[in-house]
């Protein structure tokens, strides 16, 4: 959805990601999704009288890692209390960071070459989760609510972008790239459907050259698709509203995936008074140079770097190769593919097999060793295996590991040696003299005929290229 000429969409995104730590931010309870309600709680994350927070060092490490890859300034930071009453908040205040966040500034470059600025990326604790009974299951119309504090105290990093985003597509690209980075640093598992990454979008429209319009906040978008659609809807809504002489009200809105529209959640009549003050139960965080170096040194390559590394191995990549490349980096198979290319496997082949066959069974990727991958592809490359056979071997490797040659043998994928293939071809030539004559005289189409015949005889186990090679030798 694009606004008409002369109008501009302005979007800023706030992304909350749960950090992939073993324990919660301020206590030793398990940071785990899907446990029985209220089984991962203790005096600290329940906010019992007398409890005190103690900071999880891994949460700090991961927050700093995020700051590194976002090119932020990592510095002295403090924790603040954000005070408000809500039943999913055990202390009725949230420990967060206010005017001194651990990461300030930074930017993220997107695939399309655009750059989105980052204002800050700070640490805070997550709240519990409430389910609403009676009514539609949403909060409006509910009779009562039930609260589970398993999620309370889970470490979060909140990443706030500048209001630099100008289209829903760019917003989606930003969120996607950010997600890739969060996964690559090990900070997050990026499982939006499980709520480990949540996005709030601040959306406004304006006539080019004019002041920023009033913005609405769309909360808790939990898929890239929702993000895209919600921004489109909201941009349209605001534009039409203004066009009809109305004014956009500053408010928080909720996106309904089924209805495909945003609706008012809360009107911000006055700014909430959170009475921020420095958290007296925690001490200051001073990430010295040595600590920052350690984090920087532990970082692997980010998606952008990995894409570049693969791109460098391709000559004039086709668009389908570029697509495959993106899939491969996204899924984390780039190192496998690079290893294969470096071992002599054709880049295109390696990309294709990774983007298709490996992508089909991501969960079992650990069963496939780089050596096995390389060996299988080499067998395909040398025509010892047909494409079909190579794919089946890969599937088998993913399923249960093993040795490619052994698997091939057990599946009866005999290595058709030149001799036996040659013998088969000669038999067929003798059986089909007319077709052979026409081929010999230059009719290339008949190569396919003979390949078909060879496949029939060998039950699909011959390698097309090898057959052509045999035919050409006898021409």
């Amino acid at each position, binding site marked *: 959805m694009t606004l008409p000429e002369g109008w501009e969409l302005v979007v800023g995104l706030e992304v909350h990601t749960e950090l992939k*730590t*073993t*324990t919660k931010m301020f*206590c*030793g*309870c*398990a940071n785990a999704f899907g446990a*029985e*309600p*209220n*089984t*991962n*709680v*203790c*005096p600290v994350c*329940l906010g019992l009288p007398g409890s005190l927070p*103690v*900071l*999880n*060092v*891994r*949460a*700090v490490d991961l927050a700093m890692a995020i700051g590194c890859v976002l090119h932020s300034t990592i510095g002295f930071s*403090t924790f603040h209390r954000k005070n*408000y*009453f*809500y*039943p*999913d908040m055990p202390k009725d205040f949230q420990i967060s960071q206010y005017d001194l966040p651990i990461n300030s500034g930074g930017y993220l470059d997107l695939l399309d070459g655009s750059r989105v600025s980052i204002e800050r990326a700070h640490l805070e604790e997550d*709240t519990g989760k*409430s*389910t*609403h009974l*009676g009514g539609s299951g949403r*909060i409006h119309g*509910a*009779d*009562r*609510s*039930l*609260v*589970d*504090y398993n999620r309370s105290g889970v470490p979060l990093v909140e990443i706030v972008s500048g209001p630099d985003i100008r289209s829903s597509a760019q917003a989606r690209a930003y969120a996607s790239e950010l997600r890739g980075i969060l996964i690559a640093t090990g900070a997050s598992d990026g499982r939006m459907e499980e709520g480990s990454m949540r996005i709030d979008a601040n959306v406004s429209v304006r006539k080019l050259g004019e002041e920023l319009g009033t913005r609405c906040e769309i*909360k808790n978008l939990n898929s890239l698709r929702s993000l895209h659609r919600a921004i489109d809807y909201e941009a349209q809504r605001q534009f039409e509203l203004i066009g009809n002489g109305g004014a956009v009200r500053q408010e*928080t809105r*909720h996106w309904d995936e089924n209805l495909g529209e945003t609706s008012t*959640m*809360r009107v911000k009549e006055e700014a*909430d*008074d*959170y*009475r921020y003050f*420095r958290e007296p139960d*925690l*001490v*200051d*965080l*001073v990430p010295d140079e040595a600590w920052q170096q350690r984090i920087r040194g532990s970082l692997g390559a980010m998606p952008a770097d990995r894409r570049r590394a693969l791109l460098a191995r391709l000559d004039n990549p086709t668009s389908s190769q570029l697509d495959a490349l993106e899939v491969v980096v996204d899924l984390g198979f780039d190192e496998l593919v690079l290893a294969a290319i470096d071992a002599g496997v054709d880049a295109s082949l390696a990309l294709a097999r990774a983007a298709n066959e490996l992508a089909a069974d991501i969960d079992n990727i650990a069963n496939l060793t780089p050596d096995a991958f390389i060996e299988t592809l080499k067998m395909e490359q040398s025509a010892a295996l047909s494409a079909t056979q190579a794919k089946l071997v890969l599937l088998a490797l993913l399923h249960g590991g093993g040795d490619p040659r052994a698997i091939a043998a057990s599946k009866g994928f005999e290595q058709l040696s030149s001799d036996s293939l040659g013998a088969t071809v000669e038999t067929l030539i003798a059986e089909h003299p007319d077709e052979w004559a026409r081929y010999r005289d230059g009719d290339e189409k008949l190569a396919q005929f003979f390949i078909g015949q060879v496949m029939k005889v060998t039950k699909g186990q011959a390698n097309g290229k090898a057959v052509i090679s045999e035919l050409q030798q006898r021409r």
Partner: protein
Amino acid sequence: MASPLRRDDVAKVAKLARLTLSEEELDQFTEQLGQVLEHAKDIAALDLKDVVATAHPFGLINVVREDVLRPSLDRDAVLAMAPDAEEGRFAVPRILGETP
């Protein structure tokens, strides 16, 4: 002595703090809190713009713990404290208004 605090300031603050005050209490608190704040005027008047607030009096920094599991509470013990619970969760009357 006029209180530095107005009655509707106090009423607003009571709402923020989730406290209901009677008319009498509103008057009484306005006066009493006003007295305390009157005393605090000596602080408000000081020129301390070059002074920095102290965090920990002995300068502790970087107090952290390793990312290692510790035992959680037994769920029954947790719910036994609850004024109202259902299906292993804490039950509360309906929530009007979404989380800020």
